[in-house]
């Protein structure tokens, strides 16, 4: 943390000492004094010097370890191109990892048929995989930083919830409608913000996400406000309900009813939706519109010079991403059976964005793995509820410092001359909005 890289033991200790001193000042009041409002509204406080001492000691030890590691590893090399050995290894793994993962995912409900917890977790992971792939269209391909993606998720969820509870429409009718409505909102947001670049776009999308959430909270007649919408119908197998009745799927097939049927069905449903997202994205990348997105990410001015209509290109990216968000939202609503504005906070947007960035923007496989790592990690920390977001935030900062290009920091280019060569994503520019 000190300016000069320390060499030798005295310098090392000095660095650690300074860092510990800084930590002491930082933590002295915030951690050392714990305030709490008493029952009579009076603030009381008590001291926690032990915790401060522990934290300061941790900083002292931690900075010694980090400094030693830094000297041991040496200065960070600027390896722009992935070395050939690693590259061939990666492409080998990359070629077989995706099919293996896919087969495994398809097999999950068979292997873990009775383990409700694993199936639920799988559904959750797949939901985030789908959201990640949807946002990837906007951020990874078109290079538009969208901090309000959860708004489209919310639009999809509320579309299905309200249509189903008010008019009794079936899930399969509402699913496309939710996608269309979300895409419509994407276009609506896209229109005004197209002229903005980079950071401004990020903040406007963030504001948009907050506006949607605040409207949902306050428009109580329609959305039920903070209480949310409950009693959302479960999905049916194309009209055949998955329940214990005589007209249920189990009865029709002549097998014994089990509550796992619905979970397995939901699992395959979200898997199908996620694969649809992936398939459409891969197809679109080969179409002129997908190439226009990637070109837009690389250089907007050059795009304009080449006669690409940047307005429609950005709008389609926004609308496509939003549509998948809407699908995922409708699925979320039918899975939960209850939705409230609390599910659509900025944290969700940041989580999905973190998945996309961690996965190496633009890499489909990377996003899937990142979703698995993130949601799995969240599950591991479930017992430490309050520390979860703290760890998440720290991880985000550390990943940005350590690997700003994400864990899978390379990907095959969409267009190539003679052979597909994996390039480090350091060479892939981010868009300027």
């Amino acid at each position, binding site marked *: 943390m000190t300016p000069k890289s320390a060499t030798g033991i005295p310098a090392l200790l000095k660095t650690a000492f300074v860092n510990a001193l800084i930590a002491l000042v930082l933590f002295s009041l*915030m951690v050392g004094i714990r305030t709490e409002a008493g029952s009579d509204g009076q603030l009381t406080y008590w001291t926690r010097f032990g915790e401060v001492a522990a934290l300061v000691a941790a900083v002292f030890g931690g900075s010694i370890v980090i400094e030693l590691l830094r000297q041991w590893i040496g200065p960070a090399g600027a390896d722009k191109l992935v070395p050939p050995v690693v590259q061939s290894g990666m492409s080998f793994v990359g070629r077989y990892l995706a099919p293996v993962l896919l087969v495994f995912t398809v097999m999950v409900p068979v292997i873990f048929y009775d383990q409700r917890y694993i199936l639920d977790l799988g559904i959750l992971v797949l939901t985030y995989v789908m959201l990640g792939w949807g946002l990837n269209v906007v951020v990874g391909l078109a290079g538009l930083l969208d901090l309000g993606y959860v708004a489209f998720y919310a639009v999809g969820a509320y579309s299905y919830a309200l249509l189903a509870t008010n008019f009794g429409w079936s899930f399969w009718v509402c699913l496309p409608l939710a996608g269309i409505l979300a895409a419509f909102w994407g276009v609506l947001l896209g229109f005004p913000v197209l002229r903005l670049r980079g950071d401004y776009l990020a903040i406007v999308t963030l504001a948009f996400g907050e506006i949607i959430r605040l409207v949902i909270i306050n428009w109580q007649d329609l959305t039920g406000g903070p209480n949310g919408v409950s009693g959302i119908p479960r999905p049916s197998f194309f009209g055949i309900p998955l329940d214990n009745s005589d007209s249920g799927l189990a009865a029709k097939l002549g097998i014994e009813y089990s509550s796992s049927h619905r979970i397995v069905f939901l699992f395959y449903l979200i898997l199908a939706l996620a694969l649809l997202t992936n398939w459409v994205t891969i197809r679109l990348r080969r179409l002129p519109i997908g190439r226009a997105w990637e070109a837009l990410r690389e250089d907007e001015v050059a795009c304009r010079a080449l006669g690409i209509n940047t307005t429609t290109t950005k709008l389609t990216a926004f609308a496509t991403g939003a549509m998948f968000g809407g699908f995922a939202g409708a699925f979320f609503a039918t899975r939960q059976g209850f939705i409230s504005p609390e599910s659509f906070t900025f944290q969700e947007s940041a989580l999905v964005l973190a998945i996309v960035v961690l996965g190496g923007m633009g890499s489909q496989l990377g996003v899937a793995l990142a979703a698995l790592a993130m949601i799995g990690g969240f599950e591991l920390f479930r017992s430490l509820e309050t520390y979860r977001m703290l760890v998440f935030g720290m991880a985000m900062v550390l990943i*940005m410092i350590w690997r700003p290009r994400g864990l899978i920091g390379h990907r095959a280019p969409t267009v190539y001359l003679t052979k597909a060569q994996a390039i480090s994503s350091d060479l892939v520019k981010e868009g300027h909005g």
Partner: protein
Amino acid sequence: MDYFTQQLINGLVLGSIYGLIAIGYTMVYGIVGMINFAHGDVFMIGGFIALITFLLLISTGLTAIPVILLIVLLVSMAITALYGWTIERIAYRPLRHSFRLAPMLSAIGMSFVLTNYSQVAQGARVKPIPPFITGGYTLHESADGFVIQLSNIQIMVVVTTIVLLAIFTWLVSRTRLGRDMRACEQDQTMAALLGVNVDRTISMTFVIGAALAAVAGLMYLLYYGLVDFFMGFVAGIKAFTAAVLGGIGSLPGAMLGGLAIGLIETFWSAYFSVEYKDVAAFSILIVVLIFMPTGLLGRPEVEKV
């Protein structure tokens, strides 16, 4: 008319607080070119430190209010400034030459860290303090009994803001540090070649921004009488809106934008609906960016190929 005047006063006070936070955003954006997403949380930390210092001072039996206020102000400014420095050091400096999204994402991560750090350290419940500065003046009483109040705390917020702005303007326009800051804003490489310590200047920018945010946190604590761990998020977005409205990178613009947002929010609550006041503020952000992407006092950004 009386109601209008009262709302005008309230709006100006709120706007001063937003303006103080907005200066931190606009300075950092002007020099480093990134949105310091964690700045709203630095404001929150400032509020907490002020609260804790208050508690400690009161429990020592000190009763002289001006002395207490001065000590609280200095302590919260100093410690919050150190927070600002550390945040820049850990989360932003290693990423200075990375791609553009990296510092932004790191800042979002830092914002989560700060929010949850204070939740873990101080608990999730709202922390109230008893009204500390009481009293005020009745400016005018109309025939139907409506009274325009100007409370002492409102006077204090506005006066403190003006004094700080004066010091700050002097700092930027007259001192060596201010000259370095302006040089870095224009061209960091050139400034470095001419002997300006760019790293130090950027650090100082974060320190000053955090100190001003701490003052805003203290004012918020005194004005509303409470702090909680989540207050930084919304206040941060609104202050950023203010910075954009005034033209990001422009210091007088940030203050102007802060006042504008404060007035819009207050009048919207007074005449339309309290529930949608945040929606109004965020909508203003979108509308401004559509029609005036450079804000009120900003310079247009020319992109070179």
